[in-house]
């Protein structure tokens, strides 16, 4: 029989060693831009934060509440679009625009929830995809407000001032690094708080068995919508951040199905329904997709000499591997589901537990 030792699902306090590690890590992350100024490294760190925010947001609805939305691009893209439209066409700075984005996303989420939560299991998944696609197509067709398929390019971000002092004018990656870090920490803290509250218990009860949860006094519609709203608001925040950081959005890059899939992947690969899962998922996926994009993997293959760069296969790899990230993600998911059903984190936990048993 399985004795529960995992402190994550019990409300016991953190261990002193854990607290020490967390503080060291935090100090390191806050000092990082002072030690490393290479823009590409900072860029990778920012992507890690962004992925963590996206994964953690999905985690609340998918991981804790068990509602596998594959339409989170709807919230990511809506947040991105509202922020960008307000900034570009109404001169509203993004730190106000993101709140407007969240407000619109809550409305969108309530509409989506009222449609999708009538359905369970695979039907819920399909409905979530369909609704997100409707929003993507709307963004393409509502040219007057979204600029359609051409997308929106930022010409200038207004400097962020407190009183008269300019805090930052967004000319380097450093301000984005800190914003990303703070947002990532914020989503982690929110998840932690949810997990240790009545909400967390109710969300997990719904995930484990809806009928049992219902019979024990849990209003399914209400609590599923709460989970969705929290999840959608944080995803919207990620979308706003992404849009301002990259400076350009169009329907496929922020509302596409592959964004929805990527959000789910971050969680599934790391381990759903745990706080560390999305962080680990981001640590796996971001470097992987960067390696694919910059053709690192193809050149590594050529270096080993298995395939010659000049051969037909070599040319094929060079041209296609960079675009094959969706395929590679798919393979990754199959591997994770087959061999690590509880994600990378769960897999290593199970391994150490086994070692402990053998040692005892």
């Amino acid at each position, binding site marked *: *029989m399985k004795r529960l030792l995992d402190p994550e699902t*019990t409300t016991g306090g953190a261990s002193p060693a854990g607290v020490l590690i967390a503080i060291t890590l935090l100090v390191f992350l806050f000092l990082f831009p002072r030690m490393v100024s290479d823009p590409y490294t900072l860029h990778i760190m920012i992507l890690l934060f962004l992925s963590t925010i996206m994964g953690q947001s999905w985690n609340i609805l998918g991981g804790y509440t068990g509602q596998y939305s594959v339409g989170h691009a709807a919230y990511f893209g809506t947040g991105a679009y509202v922020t960008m439209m307000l900034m570009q066409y109404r001169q509203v700075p993004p730190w106000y625009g993101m709140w407007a984005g969240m407000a619109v996303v809550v409305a969108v989420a309530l509409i989506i929830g009222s449609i999708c939560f009538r359905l369970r299991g695979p039907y819920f998944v399909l409905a979530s995809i369909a609704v997100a696609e409707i929003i993507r197509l709307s963004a393409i067709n509502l040219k007057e407000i979204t600029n359609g398929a051409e997308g929106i390019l930022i010409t200038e971000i207004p400097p962020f001032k407190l009183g008269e002092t300019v805090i930052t004018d967004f000319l380097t990656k450093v301000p984005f690094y800190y914003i990303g870090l703070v947002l990532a920490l914020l989503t982690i803290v929110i998840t932690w708080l949810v997990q240790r*509250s009545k909400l967390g*218990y109710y969300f997990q009860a719904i995930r484990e068995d809806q009928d049992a*949860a219902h019979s024990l006094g*849990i*209003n399914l519609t209400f609590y599923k919508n709460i989970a969705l709203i929290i999840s959608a608001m944080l995803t919207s925040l990620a979308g706003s951040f992404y849009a301002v950081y990259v400076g350009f959005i169009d329907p496929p890059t922020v509302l596409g199905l592959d964004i929805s899939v990527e959000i789910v992947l971050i969680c599934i690969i790391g381990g759903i329904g745990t706080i560390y899962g999305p962080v680990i998922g981001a640590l796996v996926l971001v470097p992987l997709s960067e390696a694919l994009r910059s053709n690192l993997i193809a050149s590594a293959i050529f270096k080993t000499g298995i395939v010659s760069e000049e051969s037909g296969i070599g040319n094929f790899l060079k041209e296609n591997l960079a675009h094959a990230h969706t395929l590679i993600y798919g393979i990754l998911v199959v591997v994770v589901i087959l061999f690590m059903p509880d994600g990378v984190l769960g897999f290593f936990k199970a391994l150490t537990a086994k070692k402990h048993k053998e040692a005892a």
Partner: protein
Amino acid sequence: MAILEIKHVSKFFGGLAANSDVSFEMEQGMVMGLIGPNGAGKTTLFNCITGYYPPSKGDVVFDGRSMHGLLPDKVCKLGMVRTWQKVRPLAKMSVVDNVMVGALCRTGSLKKARDMAMEQIKVVGLGQRSGFLAGGLPIGERKKLEVARVLATQPKMLLLDEVMGGLNPAESEEIIHLILTIKNLGITQMVIEHDMKAIMRISDRIVVLNSGEKLAEGTPQEIVGNPNVVAAYLGSE
């Protein structure tokens, strides 16, 4: 005044009448046995009473209030809650967390919920198991967990669907004691059970269902002496 009135309840699945025109009443604090051959419509009646399905016809009045249109969560808040014939543990949560989910129906504080949960875990005799994952418990303990969880919702009335099903005699005996303990707490109970000896011991009154219809109602003595009941059981087995 009766705490529960079942008024001409019928439930149809397509052409099948899983319940047809069932009526009876229960007094506060009593244990009502609900028996009948497999497929008689016992579980369906529980589903109709606790809001899983709206009855096709008829009404259920609990504590003076019609349950018409209420969903299970609302029914639970009003003080009536059921267990599941096929147990439904929240598998990836610990035993105490499972029972806390029930307790959280009455409080927003995790600390209070934990205390309430530990109390009920002791009542059902799972004290040693509170930190174990619910999914890993053997069947006897899962059944007890079902009972602890519903007790934690502080109900006025419990509906127990075959809590002794699949248990060995020693475990069944524990459940019988548990039901009598719950009765002493003043909680009204309706109990579905196939074990006739057990049902005779715990029930104040018994309702017999057969093919969806109420075949008989009375004290345990009246039921064993009822030739229709004997025929229904012999006919079906």
